[in-house]
């Protein structure tokens, strides 16, 4: 296996509505930023891969338009996934493993302010039995939260504590969307939105983009004394039929965690892609993490949720902390689909 590290990371400010910035202008910010961090031009990048979803902004082939931000003249080696850019990172990692690239630039973006996100996300559901009922993403997440509460695996106070921690951690991040000091009592006093979820248990709608650069050891060592290497990566998906799944456990996360080797060592930090508070609790359990791991030091998706790039951001957040020496070993996680249907887990270690 080739050793692959994350050597650059950038993210736009996390805002509810980025106003007059189109996809190209959002992507330019992060692509230029990561190139600048390393003084890279396109000649230094062997492969470009992105993640996005045209349904977010309502314009077909939006990801093709966004290529303008890369400067595809002369033509570049490029690919795209219609999902979170963490899966674009996986494709780029594979490209490097096969020896077809030594460096890769991966980016993701989402301009969710243009559409009605909970409704947009119903389009990913089974079109025969489920989508025609328009069960929005918040309603489906609420079903899973209720199942967890009924099974006695979490309490509403646990959920509130996740939100409290997210808001508190996000204070250290100037560009986070939601941050502040809250008590559990304050949070539990809020009315329900779709029971059992309260508004703060749900992610904000966020416009933004993020990018990372992957590189082999030979390249990485030119830039950082200590690099964040991906030592394990795996992803699994569960059935598309909600009624055949056990919503009180995340089996796909357990399997991906085992495949990535999470349990092989101490996990200092974990950036979990948990847009809903109860998901953070479920994922922590499924990953086999305990209280010795700092969960979502960036604030996580509750502090700002770039659809199609939040998972990728998690890789960047863990890598940057390892490079700075704030952590030695971390987990980056990404999810896709209703109620944590598909999960990608990676382990990053400093060397």
């Amino acid at each position, binding site marked *: 296996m080739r050793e692959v590290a994350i050597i650059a990371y950038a993210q736009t400010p996390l805002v509810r509505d980025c106003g007059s910035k189109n996809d190209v202008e959002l992507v330019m910010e992060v692509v230029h930023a990561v190139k600048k961090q390393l003084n890279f031009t396109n000649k230094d990048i062997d492969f470009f891969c992105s993640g996005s979803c045209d349904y977010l902004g309502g314009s077909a082939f939006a990801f093709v338009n966004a290529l303008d*931000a890369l400067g595809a003249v002369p033509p570049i080696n490029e690919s795209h996934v219609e999902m979170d850019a963490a899966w674009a990172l996986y494709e780029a990692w594979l490209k490097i493993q096969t020896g077809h690239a030594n460096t890769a630039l991966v980016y993701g973006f989402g301009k969710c302010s243009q559409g009605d996100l909970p409704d947009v996300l119903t389009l990913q559901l089974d079109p025969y039995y489920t989508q025609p009922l328009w069960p929005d993403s918040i309603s489906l997440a609420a079903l899973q939260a209720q199942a967890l509460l009924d099974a006695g695996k979490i309490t509403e106070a646990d959920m509130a504590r996740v939100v409290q921690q997210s808001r508190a951690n996000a204070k250290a991040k100037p560009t986070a969307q939601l941050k502040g000091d809250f008590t559990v009592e304050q949070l539990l006093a809020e009315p329900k939105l779709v029971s059992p979820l309260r508004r703060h248990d749900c992610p904000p709608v966020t416009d933004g983009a993020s990018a990372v650069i992957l590189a082999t050891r030979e390249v990485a060592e030119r830039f950082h004394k200590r690099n964040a290497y991906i030592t394990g990566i795996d992803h699994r998906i569960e059935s598309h039929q909600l009624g055949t799944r056990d919503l009180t456990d995340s089996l796909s996360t357990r399997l991906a965690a085992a495949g990535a080797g999470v349990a092989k060592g101490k996990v200092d930090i974990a950036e979990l892609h948990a847009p809903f508070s109860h998901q953070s609790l479920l994922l922590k359990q499924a990953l086999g993490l305990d209280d010795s791991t700092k969960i979502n030091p960036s604030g996580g998706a509750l502090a700002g949720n770039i659809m199609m790039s939040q998972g990728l951001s998690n890789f960047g957040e863990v890598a940057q902390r390892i490079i700075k020496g704030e952590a030695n070993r971390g987990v980056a996680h990404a999810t896709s689909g209703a109620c944590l249907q598909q999960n990608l887990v990676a382990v990053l270690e400093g060397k």
Partner: protein
Amino acid sequence: MSEKIEMIECPVTLSYNFSAGAAPTRFLRGMKDGRLTGQRSPLTGKVIVPPRGACPESGLPTSEEVALPDTATVITFTIVYLPIPTSKLDPPFVVAKLVLDNSDQTFILLVSGCANEDVKIGMRVKAVWKDQSEWDYSMDNIAYFEPTGEPPVDIEALKTRRLAEARQYIEKKAGSK
């Protein structure tokens, strides 16, 4: 009662509120006033219209505004015979890739005001604007382009000249620093 179900109609509609990017916004504001504007690439010196914010060759942000005339050259075209469901036009009509004078990027618009068969590559055309009372933040302010009557242009020569002009612009800019 026992008739099989083989297919279902499941139409889906989603509502969006599109917000134009910074560069397209500047272009559209110009259109509202009856002005065509392009933006210049800081790397190649080429003028891009309609602008999306980045030079597609380099990925660098374009910000230098360039005022453009509403005359253009036909680079290529096709005659459409199929009725298009979302279009108000009756076929056959001409759709052309045009390059506005003093710019370097083609875009697609209608050519009319002559027999479809008379449209040629290299033909010189000018914008026919709708009545000013109908102007909005939109390319639709131009109903179509019609022939000016000037002799056709050799588009290879046009391309060479434009590339030279773009290069000259960059060299001049570098020299003046």
